[in-house]
């Protein structure tokens, strides 16, 4: 306790002589968020996606995911589709990278075919939803430049408002504005601005829970597209950590027998 008090006192003192720029403060928040979300090693999740068109008609997707944390690079993930039934057994393997192109393979169970696919469609919709591939891929500090804007309150919680500018190629966004919870260092809300700089989508993240006494994960995501009136709800039905996954669980062999 003493050490922390001393340290914060020191920071307050240095703050007088050294003015942190908005960019430095934005980056520092992203680095802290990344640091706090490091070391979970692997996770297995089950999700339900509810797609709504502008008339409110719904369709659902059930998905399972496995992720392996890769230190110093993007994570490896395997996604398996359970419904709709005609795509059951389709599986998606992704090696994400901060600035290099991701490596992606798709398994088509009817043909028993593994297809290497282009990762250039970062701005394309994931499973027909309002989530783009870039929204669901692993978040690395190097993927964006940052700028701290202000402090704000959302639903009574203190947040930092920071702007993020994608640095990877083929992003559909010029800018994202994130409301980062000061206690969890997780976003409560993100606004996405398209290539024409107009507001495209708003994401809100709800029902956060802490796992392994450290890692915060949301239970529900709501993505609303302001330009089309469509929306998608993403419900996380379970998170399981410490599965003991290895690199071998994320290769083309495991993709072919993914269930």
């Amino acid at each position, binding site marked *: 306790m003493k050490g922390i008090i001393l340290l914060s006192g020191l920071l307050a003192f240095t703050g007088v002589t050294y003015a942190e720029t908005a960019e430095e403060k934005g980056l520092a928040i992203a680095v802290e968020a990344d640091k706090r979300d490091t070391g979970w090693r692997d996770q297995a999740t089950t999700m339900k996606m509810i*797609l709504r*068109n502008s008339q409110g008609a719904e*369709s*659902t997707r059930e998905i399972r995911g496995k992720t392996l944390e890769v230190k110093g690079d993007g994570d490896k993930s395997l996604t398996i589709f359970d*419904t*709709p*039934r*005609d*795509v*059951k*057994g389709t599986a998606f393997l992704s090696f994400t990278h901060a600035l290099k*192109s991701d*490596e992606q393979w798709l398994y088509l169970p009817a*043909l*028993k*075919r*593994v297809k*290497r*696919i*282009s*990762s*250039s*469609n970062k*701005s*394309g*919709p994931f499973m*027909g*939803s309002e989530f783009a591939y870039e929204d669901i891929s692993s978040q690395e500090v190097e993927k964006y430049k940052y700028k701290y804007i202000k402090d704000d309150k959302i639903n009574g919680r203190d947040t930092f408002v920071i702007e993020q500018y994608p640095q990877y*190629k*083929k992003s*559909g966004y010029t800018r994202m504005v994130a409301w980062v919870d000061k206690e969890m260092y997780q976003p409560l809300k993100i606004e996405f601005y398209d290539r024409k700089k107009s507001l495209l989508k708003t994401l809100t993240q709800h029902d956060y829970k802490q796992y392994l006494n450290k890692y915060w994960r949301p239970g529900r995501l709501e993505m609303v597209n302001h330009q089309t009136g469509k929306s998608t709800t993403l419900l996380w039905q379970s998170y399981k950590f410490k599965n003991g996954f290895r690199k*071998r669980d994320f*290769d*083309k*062999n495991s993709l072919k*027998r993914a*269930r």
Partner: protein
Amino acid sequence: MNKLPTIVFLAFVSTMTSSLVYSNEWSGNIALETRLFNKEGVPPAEYQQYGSVSIQPEWYHEWDSGKQSFTFVPFARWDQRDDERTHSDIRELSWLRVFAESELRIGVRKVFWGVTESQHLVDIINQTDLVENTDGEDKLGQPMINYAFINDWGTVDLFVLPYFRERTFPGVNSRLRTEPYVDTSNPVYESNDKEKHIDYAVRWAHSIGDWDIGLSYFDGTSRDPSFILGLDSSGNPAFRPAYYQLQQVGLDLQATREAWLWKLELVNRDINSENYNASTFGFEYSFYGVFDSASDIGLIMEYLYDDRDQAATTPFQDDLMLGLRWASNDENDTSLLFGVISDLDDSSRLYSVEASRRIGESWKLNIEARIFSGIDDTTHPLYSVRQDDFIQLELGYYF
């Protein structure tokens, strides 16, 4: 007297049902299909409308924390008029054992090798179920023992294939058949072991950065028969399929560079005292989010080559395939694939359209059309189907 097998069976069932993850899982589909031909066929296959129903259930059972699993996929189709198309097959009946750095599979399975879209030269493990579809994408289940060694330098798959499956062919009452028809009741084999000849295959596959590479070797009965003109049991003219012994070396390669997919398949085949090369190579380029929408458009171009030239048994010896793929990326996965394969030596063209769309949560509509155009040469491998342009509508229920 029968007690021992019962006990063994019960013991087997109890080990299978203990600590299971995905147990006793059924899925699959039932589909209604109709094929409409725009011209009358050669009697007795003169009908212009054919209806059929197919079913393909799948039973999957997993135990031993997912290290072992069992899959059973039977398939059956009943056709209103076509006796040969009324057929059934075991697509899959196999057991899988996953080890730390290897995988063992025993049973009937389907395996796909390759990268190109217009034809699949390297892909050799499974026989084509030609009565299902003319495009050669449907395959018969192949009995095998397959051991995969998984290394940092790639995966090596070894295959022992103890039983040969004959190709299915449209019968005398079928559209899309040769003239005369292929009499499958009396095939010719080069090997004295006939369909019991044991075939072997090995494949190394690896991904290195942007490159996906596969190198394969096959030694066994060719899946692709030659034909001998003769008579059937009723004394009518018929082709007899002749299955020769084949040694094939195959290479498949794909480079994935941003929106470009560069593809190559190359085979060297040694068959019936002839040695030849065949290849398919080209690219697919995708435009993402076209016209301010979520849709993607892909352009495909592939060159199809066979160095036997006009003596080739395939229609694709010096041909160019141009394709257009459209994916709406909407909630119904609406998609369309248009392709044309043009022979660069004559006027023959093969047009193909495939479209699909999900309806609700469990139904799917598939539309396929094929047009055989400009086939005037009587020696052309597709000459006998030049009147068989068709459109096929299929409505499937998935469970």
